[in-house]
């Protein structure tokens, strides 16, 4: 992935996703969700391509959203606004449960979108690096596990081909034989793995594994851009967090629907903040969500500009040189 945000320090990547996912999960205010949804869709499309996102959304996410939205009012009957009485079960379908179902479905939908971005940005080595900071032994373990899985799979293929050629593959024989052949292969693999692990252990030991004071190296550096971006993310997070703390994003769906900044059925939530703070909170959260995309776009623009700039500048310079030369020639002729 050549996206600009993924080239930032993993701690920023992680912080960004933690905040975005956390806010989406716990603050169920429709405006927040709308902002989060737009940002997630845009970023996911930027990273994964428009077609893929649309395809996945229409085929998978929207149906599951609908299912969640419909299931909630079927099983939950809280709320003060009855819509429909179902005689067979003797329960009311309520507006509140329906709305909350839709909100839950949306949360799920948005989370899936965010995770599709997360998978592109937070690669396994970044994850390992982050946890290596906390527990160095664990980062090595994860790294070794990630090494062994493809190693074992490759070896299993070799073993299967070998066994196939003596007619003892799982594709041969009746089911009883099949099971026996499969077990044989597993046994070969395990023996092989244990035997070869000795050599790996030797290799680790001979490179000083087990000495006191092991450090964890990473290829990531916290550069100036990371500092700036980190600062911006932190400030925006604090501002929107402060706003939420003071009720700028208050939402309640049970027993009645109460949303900060909205008047629903003539009611406003008691715990409410000034509209200015609410607007600032929403805007800062919006900027927070869009920051990686803005970074990408600005980088793209800068690249284009620098390329065209170099080009135009050089032609201008050379044109000037030619013109000067021509003038000099003319001068000499005169």
């Amino acid at each position, binding site marked *: 992935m050549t996206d600009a945000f993924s080239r930032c320090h993993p701690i920023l990547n992680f912080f960004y996703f933690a905040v975005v996912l956390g806010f989406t999960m716990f603050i169920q205010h429709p405006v927040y969700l709308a902002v989060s949804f737009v940002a997630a869709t845009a970023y996911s499309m930027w990273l994964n391509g428009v077609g893929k996102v649309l395809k996945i959304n229409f085929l998978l996410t929207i149906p599951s959203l609908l299912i969640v939205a419909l299931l909630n009012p079927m099983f939950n009957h809280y709320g003060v606004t009855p819509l429909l009485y179902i005689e067979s079960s003797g329960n009311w379908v309520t507006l509140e449960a329906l709305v909350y179902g839709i909100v839950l479905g949306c949360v799920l939908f948005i989370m899936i979108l965010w995770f599709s971005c997360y998978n592109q940005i937070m690669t396994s080595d970044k994850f390992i690096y982050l946890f290596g900071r906390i527990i160095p032994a664990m980062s090595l373990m994860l*790294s*070794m596990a990630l090494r062994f899985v493809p190693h074992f799979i490759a070896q299993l293929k070799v073993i299967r081909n070998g066994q196939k050629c003596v*007619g003892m593959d799982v594709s041969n024989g009746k089911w009883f034989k099949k099971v026996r052949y499969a077990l044989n292969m597993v046994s070969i693999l395990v023996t092989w793995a244990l035997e070869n692990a000795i050599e790996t252990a030797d290799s680790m030991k001979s490179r000083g594994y087990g000495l006191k004071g092991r450090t964890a190296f990473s290829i990531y550096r916290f550069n100036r851009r990371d500092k700036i971006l980190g600062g911006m993310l932190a400030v925006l997070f604090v501002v929107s967090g402060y706003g939420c703390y003071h009720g700028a994003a208050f939402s309640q769906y049970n027993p009645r629907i109460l949303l900060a900044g909205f008047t629903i059925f003539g009611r406003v939530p008691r715990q409410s903040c000034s509209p200015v703070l609410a607007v600032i909170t929403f805007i800062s959260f919006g900027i927070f969500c869009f920051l990686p995309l803005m970074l990408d776009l600005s980088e793209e623009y800068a690249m284009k500009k620098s390329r065209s700039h170099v080009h135009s500048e050089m032609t201008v310079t050379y044109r000037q040189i030619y013109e000067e030369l021509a003038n000099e020639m003319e001068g000499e002729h005169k």
Partner: protein
Amino acid sequence: MKIIEVKNFSFRYANGDRDSLENVTLDVEEGTFNVLCGKSGCGKSTLLRQLKSDLAPYGSKSGRICYYGQNLTEIDHRQQSQEIGYVLQNPENQIVTDKVWHELAFGLESLGYDTPSIRLRVAEMASYFGIHQWFYKNVSELSGGQKQLLNLAAIMAMHPKLLILDEPTSQLDPIAASDFLETVRKINRDIGTTVILTEHRLQDVIPWADKVYVMDKGSLLTQGTPREIGEFLKKEHHGMFLSMPVPMQIYAEVESDLPCPLTVREGRNWITQVMQKARHDKLEQVCHDREQLLNESYHDEMNVEKHDRAFEKNNEFESTKTDDFTQNSSTDINIDTNEVNSKSNSKLHKTLNTLRSKIPHMSKEFETPAIQVKDVWFRYEKDGRDVVQDLNLEVKQGEFYALVGGNGTGKSTTLSLISRVRAPYRGKILLNGVDIRRYTDTQLYRGYLGVLPQNPQSMFIRKTVREDLYSIIGGAKEKKSPEYTASMKKAEAIEGIVSLTRLEGLLDRHPYDLSGGEQQRLALAKVLLLQPRLLLMDEPTKGLDAEYKQELGEILKKLQEHGITIFMISHDVEFVAEYADRVGLFFQGNVVTSKPAAEFFAGNSFYTTAANRMARHYFPDAVTGKEVAACLKERL
């Protein structure tokens, strides 16, 4: 300054019944390139492992090993990890982490370096070894050669003073192997790191060595410069010279008082000198004989008999020539050397043919071929490139056919097509005249086709060799089963196979405890128990030393005598030249040419044996070291 001193060192494994190392005494000078050689199981690896306490196996030892004058046991783990680098045999197993950069940093992390200094060291190493192009890759994406280079770089990142390599190239193809060894040499030359190396491919390393140590049966046979070793082995006629570079082998066979050649280039010059000297001697001899003759004929008319005898010594001349000489009293000797050459060439051909007394070719042209591949195409992915393109190939019944060619040209894929592990998308493969798709699994794999996989370890199931052999024919019980249809008793069959593949005495060992060559033979035995008529092998000589190769070659010859067809893929030009009947050159998914072995190698100028490259200006038809030596002897 001596970096390593081994004094009267003996070692016995904890459960061993004899000393694996006996009274070894050797010194290694700082900054030198040292090669330790010997047959498999002679104690090379055991000795190398003793040079690093962490890797030394358990057992009783006596004598001393000193590192810079200090007893090795007194040097702590930290210093040993940092200063003594050790590269093991298998490139896969040494890699610990999943990323190239992490692997490079692993040792430094253990030593507790901080991030900036690790970053510098890693950057340095990646640039020096040319790893920067694949720095961010997963290790599973690397080729074998790249993996071993990574292992070397990961060790060099710790800046060791002593670099020990235990058969580092045995799992690599020839090109990757010589690249790797070249890098080791570069490290020794540029950085001055002391190198101790064991290797099968001695022709690549012996010429560079400052000192060569030859081990035999756990003790040090001799040590010295490569030339001294060559002369020693020649004098002793020791079996060890089998694994020496071909020029040295030929040198050891032929009488001459010139210094021992080490490389092909030196070998060429040496042959030229030997031949010129021989010709010169011959001329002188002729001259001398003639003068003597003339003198004698002046003095005594009665010694016709004697001059005849004198000329008989020169077997290049026919007796009729003597008349001309005696009649012509001129002292000008203008011997027609061309004639000498042509005479001796016909003789050489005879020599070569007797040497190549291969199994009388059952040239049954009318018989259906064992393998017929007709216009076969194959690719791995739908939009991938064709790995096998329009392949046509024919292997006759009872023939030993070898397919040689570069890496990644599709040789192994071809083998998997013939063994029906994969199926071509176009074209036909006929085995014994029947389409391969029409065989049932039992028909094909039990009784017709035997496939020896590249890695013998992928076949071992049981705890002992005996059980493992029985497992392939459905257990030790003597009853008829679909797995075993032969009329012979199982025990008898196993006994026969064991004596054929020389596994006697190993039956109660664990398959993994066998050496590489023995494992290979066990895998072969298992395949042969299925009584195949056609044996397919994928690089059977990989990682084997000269002696095991010879044993394998002899087993294969014996199988061939009994009418078994053998199809082999190999990188090992020397082995192919010695044992195969017909050789095909595989290139870009296709067999470019397919000729009898001698003709094939005699016709190529690059893709041919070292012996042929060395001697082709005199004996273009001599392909193996033995043949060149025989030709030379013939001429002297």
